[in-house]
């Protein structure tokens, strides 16, 4: 086991390193780009509650470097991507140095080889994750010749997992064959095998495969029909016990897009035993979804939606749960004859039902955007009504408005913005009925000097959470961001920046103010792209 694990990693690494075999001088004849961003952040966290902060105290650096190269040699097009990250802030990354991207791509339009970071377009059920490995694709671009894709790799989310221990080693082997029949119909068959070679105690290991058939048909302009059917067979090792499961998943979708309407209908059914480790699916679900967007007039658009799904496909659970999520909305341009106005109204319902519990949550939202004199306004009012049997009954009201404008004063552009928002929540089922409030207000100013290529934004504000049955929380904050593209860095699209913020958290929960804390942060940095 140990030797084969090492051999897999060595072969994979050797294949990926082959991208480096091509002399760098080849890149010099073509096109390459180098991008880098270096920033140094100094954080200061103080106060008895500083453990609640998400900042790392002290001075930390973060550098992100990326190198791209594209070129052509006779009929062969190629490209390389190498990227890395360096930081001494464990909250940015536990590794000081890490490889973030490593890929070589070679293609003569018929044969395409990708080594390193690999992600291929299989169907959603079969493959929806990237691997560290390689893929080969054959595209003959002739009518009766199918497109073939082969893939192999380890499903690591980071390159360091390849040479450090402590991560699940998940091998993915896949293949796809796709045939187009005319211009309107295509069908594809894909197979993906997943084997967990090295797991960690307490984690579930899988080994098995999925086979998926997917098709797309466009019978008339504006109408697209899609279907996907998948079968899986997997073994699972959990807490030392091995079991097997097999299942299937099917989905049909029809999309009609011809103004004034866009309609989509979808049906999906996934059995409880269906497993796809490298793809995406939620097992034990049957679902119907419909959406209709209707442009009633040039200025009025209606949106209707409905989603229903349930579990316990084979009645294998003691209690089946059904979910209903209908929604309706209307968007009106130039209501009341106002030239710059847009109004949106939506109503969404979230119902969950089983034999013991019923949930009915209502969400109503009104948004109105308009221009009043020199100010652009954006206002929102929403109502959320929560109702779950014996668990929650609450009403929440959210309201906010922002006013912004733009003024040119000589070479300077000023963009003031003011914001006020609030939230009121009534909780009825708590032992003591309570009403809580949140108020937030802020003022900001954007300052741009185009001749100097400087943009900046400044903002101060306060957020107050006022709780009837518990302590209040108050956060006072200030932010400043300054970006400068100096002339001397124009060739490299260079930019210098400074970002700073202060957050001051105060709590009334503990009379000794044990949870108060303040965060001060300043980041200076530079980036360029050559």
């Amino acid at each position, binding site marked *: 086991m140990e030797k084969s694990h090492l051999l897999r990693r060595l072969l994979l690494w050797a294949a990926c390193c082959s991208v480096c075999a091509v002399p760098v001088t080849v890149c010099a004849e073509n096109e390459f780009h180098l991008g880098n961003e270096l920033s140094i952040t100094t954080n200061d966290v103080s106060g008895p509650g500083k453990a609640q902060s998400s900042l790392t105290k002290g001075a930390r650096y973060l550098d992100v470097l990326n190198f791209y190269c594209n070129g052509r040699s006779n009929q062969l097009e190629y490209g390389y991507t190498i990227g890395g990250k360096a930081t001494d802030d464990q909250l*940015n990354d536990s590794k000081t140095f890490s490889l973030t991207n490593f890929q070589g791509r070679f293609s003569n339009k018929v044969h395409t080889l990708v080594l390193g970071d690999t992600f291929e377009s299989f169907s959603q059920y079969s493959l*929806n994750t990237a691997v560290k490995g390689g893929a080969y694709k054959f595209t003959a671009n002739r009518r009766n010749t199918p497109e073939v894709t082969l893939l192999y790799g380890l499903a690591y989310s980071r390159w360091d997992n390849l040479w450090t221990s402590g991560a699940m080693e998940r091998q993915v082997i896949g293949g796809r064959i796709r045939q187009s029949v005319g211009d309107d119909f295509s069908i594809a068959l894909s197979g993906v095998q997943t084997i967990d070679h090295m797991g960690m105690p307490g984690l579930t290991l899988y080994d098995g495969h999925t086979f998926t058939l997917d098709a797309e048909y466009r019978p008339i302009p504006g109408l697209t029909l899609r279907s996907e059917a998948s079968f899986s067979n997997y073994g699972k090792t959990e807490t030392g016990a091995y079991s097997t499961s097999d299942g299937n998943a099917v989905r049909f979708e029809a999309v009609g897009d011809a103004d004034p309407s866009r309609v989509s209908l979808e049906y999906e059914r996934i059995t409880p035993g269906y497993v796809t480790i490298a793809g995406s699916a939620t097992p034990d679900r049957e679902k119907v979804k419909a959406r209709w967007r209707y442009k009633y007039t040039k200025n009025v658009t209606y949106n209707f939606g409905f989603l229903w799904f349930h579990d316990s496909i084979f009645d294998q659970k003691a209690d089946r749960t059904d979910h209903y999520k209908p929604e309706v909305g209307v968007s009106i341009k130039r209501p009341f004859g106002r030239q710059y106005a847009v109004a949106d109204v939506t109503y*969404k319902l979230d119902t969950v039902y089983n034999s013991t519990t019923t949930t009915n*949550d209502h969400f109503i939202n009104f948004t109105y955007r308009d221009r009043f004199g020199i100010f652009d306004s954006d206002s929102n009012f929403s109502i959320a009504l929560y109702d779950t049997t014996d668990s929650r009954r609450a009403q*929440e009201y959210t309201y906010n408005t922002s006013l912004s404008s733009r003024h040119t004063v000589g070479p300077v552009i000023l963009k003031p913005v003011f914001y006020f928002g609030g939230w009121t929540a009534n909780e009825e089922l708590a032992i003591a009925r309570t009403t809580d409030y*949140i108020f937030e207000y802020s003022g900001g100013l954007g300052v741009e000097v185009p001749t100097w290529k400087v943009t900046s934004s400044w903002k101060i504000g306060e957020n107050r959470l006022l709780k009837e049955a518990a302590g209040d929380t108050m*956060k006072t904050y200030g932010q400043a961001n300054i970006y400068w593209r100096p002339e001397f860095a124009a060739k490299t699209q260079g930019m210098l920046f400074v970002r700073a913020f202060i957050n001051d958290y105060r709590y009334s929960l503990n009379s000794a103010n044990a949870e108060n804390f303040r965060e001060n942060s300043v980041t200076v940095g530079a980036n360029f792209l050559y």
Partner: protein
Amino acid sequence: MKSLLSYLVFMLLGLALLTPSPADAKWWIFGQSNEEVSFSYLNLNRFSYDESGPKTSIPKGSLADGQILINGKVKVGKGNVGGVRISTNNKENWQDAKLADDGTFEFRFTPDLNKVIVLYVEATDTVGKVNDVEKTRKEVTIVDSNLQEVARGVLDALIAAYRAEDPAAFMRLVSEDYAGDAANLDRAIRKDFSAFDNIDLRYTLNNLTYVPGGKIFAAINYNRSVTSSRSGKTFSDNGSTEIVLKPSEKGIAIFSMKNPLIFGLSDAAEVATGSSAVSQPVIVVDARGTVVKVPAVVFNQIVKDETFSVTTNADGTSTVAVSTGSYTVNADGTVKNVTPATIRYSATVESGSVNLVYTGQPPVGFDFARGETTTGTGDFFITGGGPDKAYSWIANGASYQDLGTAVAIATLGSAPTSGYRTTTGMGVYLEAGHTYAFKLGSGKYALMEVTSASESFATGMMVITMRMKYKYQASGDAQFLP
């Protein structure tokens, strides 16, 4: 209250229905044209042809299947629609679009990169009349944008909308065929905004991989803090997760997310389609909007159960009920106690005793995850020593702290979650009788008790022998007991 609100909603809908509409304003874009041949609507990649202006650039990565789609509907005054042709090279050549009987048409082509495409669209009726072709002239350039910048732009916009608690702005960046259903994510983020206040969320990219014209896979490290609207407490956590973006009619939009989620925590069971490995405590939200931070082992159980509940206790702890029992957790995500007592953190702990003997180069080390002695590598390795101590180097990415002499790992319930030190350019003495905690490069924890360390020159060379007991928590929790 509800009936009043329902009445208000239907009143507004009724107002919209009664809004006066010009006779032919039911059709899009080209409005009240007097031309005999015109377009009811014309789209470029599902966006209005007119709104993109006479010149436009399109990122290559945003093209579905790498193709540009032109579609629309022809309107004729007399007769029928005769045909629709598209030119992509400034009228040098024309190609027929696929045309239906009702006048709808579509045309797809694969553009060359970084080349200006000059488009014209020509429609004719059966009596020979043609639309004003010059009005349809458009220069389109497909640019090979730095994909990192495109993906980061989308992630930055999603985070900005989430921090601003703006569901409409957020959902504009969600694909309509989101894998966990866009409606589920929409409801979940609205519930997040009820549960959270003062949302602060930052990330760095670990990896970005894409299919040309298709999906983008992003692995990220995130770091966030939120204030619970219910309790008023502030929670912070950090971890890693994976997100897939894809081109859609809205542009690059979010397609799927794995646990631990950074958006839609209130309905993680429906929003997430998969899980990443978790080694740190994670913020979770139950169905009532109660926020709590739970250790990795509890989070993994929540993912399996798909449901859980949280009760806030008077002493500031919270009790999380899952199918296997209940965990009482502290505010920092560590476990205070477990019910029933049969639930064991120790189930995922690996332990043992090892003798490390250094006799010269290469150095001898130890790999906690494998439980093996190593040569020249490992989480730490010995290069020398002295009486009662071994001189060692800590591996890059790992950190340690000395817990002192009064601690035996047999009874040590957990490793500290903070206070670790890295050694840059310097070694550290591991002393007999001391217990050390390690935070490894994988983010997981290990404990080591040095029972003895000795130095000998009996063979004429320095031999360092260190005897140690160790524990390694494979689950990633800092908790080792019970």
